[in-house]
C-alpha cells in the first residue's frame, strides 16, 4: 500500500493551520500527551449533536434508536480495530479509568496477601499507582522491575521477577517517556507461563501499532481516544472472555442491571454490565471516526512515518554537542517519541524557548517519576510525532534546539 504524503495529511487538521501573532506557524510535537483531531472527527461530533443526539437503549423513539445503533456501530469499529469481539470492549473515559477499573473490578476480587503484582519501573503513573495502591490494600507485594538505561526491558531480569506467586503483570506496550516498544508477546508468554494475568497499557501503542488482542494473548488492554485522533473523555478497556467472569462491576448505576431488588442487584451481561450511567455516545462515535481515519492512512504507514521522522531527527541531533538522546537506538523498537536533554539547560527552559519558535513539546517527568528517579534524571524534554508531522517540523525543531544551546552557551 502506498502511504499518503505527509504534507497532504496535515491539511485534514484544522488546528495545524494556526499561525501565531509573530507569524510563526504551530509545529505540534506533543502528540504523546494528546493528539490533534481531523476535520472528520470534529464534524462527526457536530453531526451527532445536530442530528442524532439521544440517550441510548430503552428509548422507543427514533433518535434513541439512531443513537443506540450508532453507539453499537462505534463499539464494533473500536473492537474490530484491536481484534476483539464487541462484547469484550468496554467504553471508559480513558486509559486511567480503564486501568483503575481492572484494579478494582478484577484486582480487589482476586489479589490476596502474599500475592505479587509486577510492573516495570518505566510505567506511566496511571499504570503504576493503581497497582501500588491495590498491593497495599490487599497486602500483596508490589514488585518493580528495572529497565535498561536505554529504556528497554531485559527479558532475563523480567523472567526472574515473575514467579508463581505473581497474580498480575502490568506494563505498557510502548512507553510514553522514550517511545520504547516492549516485546509484548514474549513478556505475556512469560507471565502466562506462571499463571499471571496480564494488563497492557496501550495508551501509546494502540495509536501507533496495529494490535490484535487475540494474537498477542493479553487479558486486559487499556487505551485512550484522545491519543489516537479521537475526542477527549472516551477510551477503551478490553476484557478477555476468560477473565470477565472473575470480575465484578466496578461502577454501578443505570443501564447495567437486569433487576434491582432491595438488598441485591442482578447485573446485566457485558459489555453493559461494565458501563454504568449514560455513556459518552458522542465520544464513542468520534473515536470510531478517528479509527476509520487511521485505517485509511494505514497503521503500517503511521509507524513508518514515525520511524522516518525519528531517524531523520537523530541524524540531525547527533551532530549537536551536549545533547543526550534517551531510548534505544534500535529504531525498530521505537515509535515517534524523542526524549532529550541539553547539557546545562533545564528542560522547562527548553520547552519555553521552543514554544517561542512555535514548537510545542513537553518537558517534565512525563508522569513517570519512578523511571526518572531510576535513571537519576529529574526530567526530559519530549517531542512526539504523529500522522500529521513532516520533516520540515523536525527542521524547525532542530533549529530551535540550536537556538536554546546558543542562548545558554
Amino acid at each position, binding site marked *: 500500500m502506498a502511504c499518503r504524503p505527509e504534507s497532504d495529511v496535515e491539511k485534514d487538521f484544522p488546528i495545524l493551520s494556526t499561525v501565531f501573532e509573530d507569524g510563526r506557524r504551530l509545529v505540534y510535537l506533543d502528540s504523546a500527551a494528546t493528539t490533534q483531531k481531523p476535520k472528520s472527527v470534529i464534524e462527526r461530533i457536530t453531526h451527532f449533536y445536530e442530528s442524532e443526539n439521544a440517550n441510548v437503549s430503552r428509548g422507543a423513539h427514533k433518535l434513541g434508536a439512531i443513537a443506540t445503533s450508532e453507539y453499537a456501530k462505534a463499539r464494533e469499529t473500536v473492537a474490530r480495530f484491536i481484534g476483539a469481539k464487541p462484547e469484550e470492549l468496554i467504553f471508559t473515559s480513558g486509559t486511567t479509568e480503564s486501568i483503575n477499573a481492572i484494579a478494582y473490578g478484577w484486582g480487589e476480587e482476586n489479589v490476596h496477601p502474599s500475592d505479587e503484582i509486577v510492573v516495570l519501573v518505566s510505567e506511566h503513573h496511571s499504570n503504576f499507582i493503581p497497582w501500588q495502591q491495590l498491593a497495599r490494600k490487599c497486602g500483596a507485594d508490589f514488585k518493580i522491575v528495572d529497565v535498561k538505561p536505554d529504556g528497554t526491558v531485559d527479558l532475563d531480569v523480567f523472567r526472574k521477577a515473575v514467579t508463581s506467586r505473581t497474580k498480575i503483570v502490568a506494563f505498557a506496550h510502548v512507553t510514553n517517556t522514550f517511545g520504547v516498544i516492549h516485546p509484548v508477546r514474549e513478556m505475556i508468554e512469560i507471565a502466562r507461563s506462571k499463571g499471571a494475568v496480564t494488563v497492557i497499557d496501550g495508551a501509546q501503542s494502540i495509536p501507533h501499532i496495529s494490535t490484535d488482542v487475540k494474537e498477542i494473548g493479553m487479558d486486559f488492554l487499556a487505551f485512550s481516544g484522545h491519543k489516537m485522533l479521537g475526542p477527549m473523555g472516551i477510551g477503551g478497556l478490553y476484557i478477555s472472555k476468560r477473565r470477565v467472569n472473575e470480575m465484578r462491576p466496578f461502577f454501578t448505576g443505570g443501564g447495567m442491571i437486569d433487576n434491582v431488588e432491595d438488598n441485591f442487584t442482578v447485573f446485566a451481561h457485558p459489555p453493559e454490565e461494565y458501563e454504568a450511567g449514560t455513556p459518552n455516545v458522542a465520544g464513542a462515535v468520534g473515536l470510531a471516526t478517528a479509527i476509520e481515519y487511521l485505517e485509511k492512512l494505514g497503521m503500517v504507514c503511521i509507524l513508518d512515518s514515525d520511524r522516518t521522522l525519528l531517524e531523520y531527527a537523530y541524524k540531525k541531533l547527533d551532530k549537536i554537542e551536549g545533547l543526550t538522546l534517551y531510548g534505544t537506538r534500535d529504531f525498530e523498537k521505537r515509535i515517534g517519541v524523542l526524549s532529550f536533554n541539553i547539557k546545562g539547560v*533545564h528542560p522547562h527552559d527548553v520547552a519555553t524557548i521552543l*514554544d517561542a519558535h512555535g514548537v510545542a513539546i513537553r518537558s517534565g517527568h512525563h508522569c513517570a517519576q519512578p523511571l526518572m528517579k531510576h535513571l537519576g534524571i529529574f*526530567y526530559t524534554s519530549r517531542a512526539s510525532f504523529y500522522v500529521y508531522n513532516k520533516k520540515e517540523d523536525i527542521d524547525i525543531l532542530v533549529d530551535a534546539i540550536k537556538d536554546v544551546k546558543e542562548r*545558554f552557551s
Partner: protein
Amino acid sequence: MDPSELYAEVIIDHQKNPRNYGELENKDKEVKLTNSSCGDEIFLQVKFDGDRIQDIAFYGRGCAISTASASIMTELVKGISKEKAEELYEKFVEMARTGKAPSSELKDARVFQGVSKYPLRVKCATLAWHALEKVIE
C-alpha cells in the same frame, strides 16, 4: 513571541552565576518550597538583625527563570527591612501575574515583567518570592 524577551541576558547571567547561592553559616530560619507543577525546589535561608534581613542565601533545583529570579531577589532584599521586603514581594507577584508596568523599586527584577505571557512559567518566577514571604512572616 521573541524568546529574548523572557530569556534576557541578565537572566542567563544570573542563571549561570547565581548570587547568594549556597548555605548561610548561621541562619536564623530556612524554608523549603516546591513548585508543584514540576517538582523543582528552593531552600531559602535568612539571618535577621532585628527586623532587618541581614543575610540571605538559597540553593535547590530549578530552571533558569526560577534560579535567576531567586538570585535577583536575594540581591534586592539583602539588608532591607522585613516590611520593605514584604512590599517588594507584593509588587513582584503582581507584576509577574499581570504583566503590568512594575515599580522602579524592583530594579533588575523588572526583567520578569514578560513572564505573565507564559502563564505556566509564572510559578517559576515567583517561587523564590513566595519562599521569601514565608521566611519573613
